[in-house]
């Protein structure tokens, strides 16, 4: 069958037309994201409150969860087998390390899933897809606030009074969130094509958990300059170390701060760019 000629051509000028599936220019894209700030902030907040709606204690679980976690550490490392692994105040050391590490893990995992669990929404409505990673991040950040409070309580309970350094907490939280969101952007992009990534992520984090000085003091075991440099290339080590300095005054070298700043900005910018490059294909067949 031969195709018949098209309908009488209209105005041949193509001003104002753009290829279907071309993503918006960066400035307009960011403005569209800003327009959706209520989606990004309110939807995860409502989800968070609804999450525990079917439990007896409801929202109290948000605080109880980290509290119980610390309780388990106290029981194991304080009562059953009191070891210090070369660290003063091991409970404080461990609590900060674990909470900070898990925060990044949760953000990255949730952001990685944020696109594939919302395919229904993506296929049904037009919106800049980056609102999904952003709203997943906001949800995890809100859920982290009670954990942060528990962290502070543990530090104070061990006799370290709040210090002016604590004023750095919001800034540090922003840096770590930026890094985790950036890493999540990358994971979300590839998880859309290869769902295998979702199964792999827990093992990547398990490995990172053991090599980031969450359970032990890196400085205690490694004293060569080269060894330290290797750890600066590990963002989780950087965050854990800086958080410990801010919260409990454990020493953190200046280069760790620099590395933390670089990791945060570079990961966010690169992650966002990689995610946006595939913007219009999310929801398609790959």
């Amino acid at each position: 069958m031969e195709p018949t000629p098209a309908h009488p051509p209209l105005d041949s000028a193509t001003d104002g037309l753009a290829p279907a599936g071309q993503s918006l220019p960066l400035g307009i894209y960011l403005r569209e994201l800003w327009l959706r700030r209520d989606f990004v902030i309110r939807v995860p907040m409502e989800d968070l409150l609804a999450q525990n709606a079917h439990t007896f204690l409801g929202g109290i679980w948000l605080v109880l969860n980290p509290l119980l976690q610390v309780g388990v550490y106290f029981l194991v490392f304080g009562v059953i087998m009191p070891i210090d692994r070369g660290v003063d105040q091991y409970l404080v050391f461990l609590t900060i390390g674990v909470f900070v590490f898990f925060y990044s893990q949760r953000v990255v995992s949730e952001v990685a899933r944020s696109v594939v669990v919302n395919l229904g929404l993506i296929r049904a409505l037009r919106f800049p897809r980056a609102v999904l990673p952003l709203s997943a991040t906001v949800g995890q950040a809100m859920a982290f606030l009670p954990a942060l409070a528990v962290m502070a309580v543990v530090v104070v309970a061990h006799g370290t009074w709040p210090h002016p350094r604590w004023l750095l907490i919001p800034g540090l939280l922003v840096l770590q969130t930026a890094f985790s969101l950036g890493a999540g952007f990358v994971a979300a992009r590839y998880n859309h094509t290869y769902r295998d990534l979702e199964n792999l992520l827990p093992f990547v984090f398990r490995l990172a958990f053991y090599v980031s000085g969450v359970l032990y003091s890196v400085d205690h075991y490694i004293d060569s300059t080269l060894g330290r440099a290797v750890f600066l290339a590990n963002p989780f080590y950087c965050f854990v170390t800086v958080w410990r300095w801010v919260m409990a005054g454990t020493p953190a070298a200046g280069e760790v701060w620099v590395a933390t700043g670089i990791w945060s900005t570079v990961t966010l910018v690169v992650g966002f760019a990689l995610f946006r490059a595939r913007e219009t294909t999310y929801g398609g067949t790959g």
Partner: protein
Amino acid sequence: MSKVAIRCTDARVSYTVRTHRPLIRGALRGQRPDARVIEAVRGVTFDVAVGESVGVIGPNGSGKTSLLQATTGLLPLAGGQVLVRSTPAFLGVQAVLRPHLTGWRNIRLGLLAQGLNAAEARGQADGVAEFTGLGDFLDLRMETYSSGMRARLHFAVATALAPKILLIDEALAVGDREFRNKSAARLDDHRAAAGTVLLVSHNLAEIRRSCSRVIWLQEGLVVADGPTPDVLAAYEAS
């Protein structure tokens, strides 16, 4: 001369279907996956003017849905070009939004996602809810809805903000008579406000009601493109 809303030039869409994927052991021995390329759209050219409402007809597998999805940018083109004046809204049959949430929450979520702020979304939610005609069902989770109910909710949410280009893929067919009348009326309003519609449907009465022009696709090619009565007469005679 009227402005172009959608310009398709020799658009081609193809799918690679892997009928047999070798396991990793096979891949190491050099087995290649059996891949077949299916050409769903094989060079389609047409212009749609701003404010025009065009029906797309043809048998199953003639490339209608692929053409619409390429126009949204969801499917990459294998060749040719599709230009659009603004990002089109796509209404398909399998709309779910967020299945675990209630109808009300989905309305709110949908309005926020499309760029309304919380206060505007609150203000519009009642109107959208009323348009769906779902009543108390809006308190139930969307996964409990029938396909017709889902389509109503999706149509109401997606058209609430009057997107300039609307691509509809059989989304109205699952609705009942009352909803079909309502949605047809909304499409009329949409057209009156210089909105562009591309409507895929097997319901020729619906096409006759809403479209002034029809494109007939068969095996990925345009068979006919012209005024609705002429093309439908030829289609029904075929």
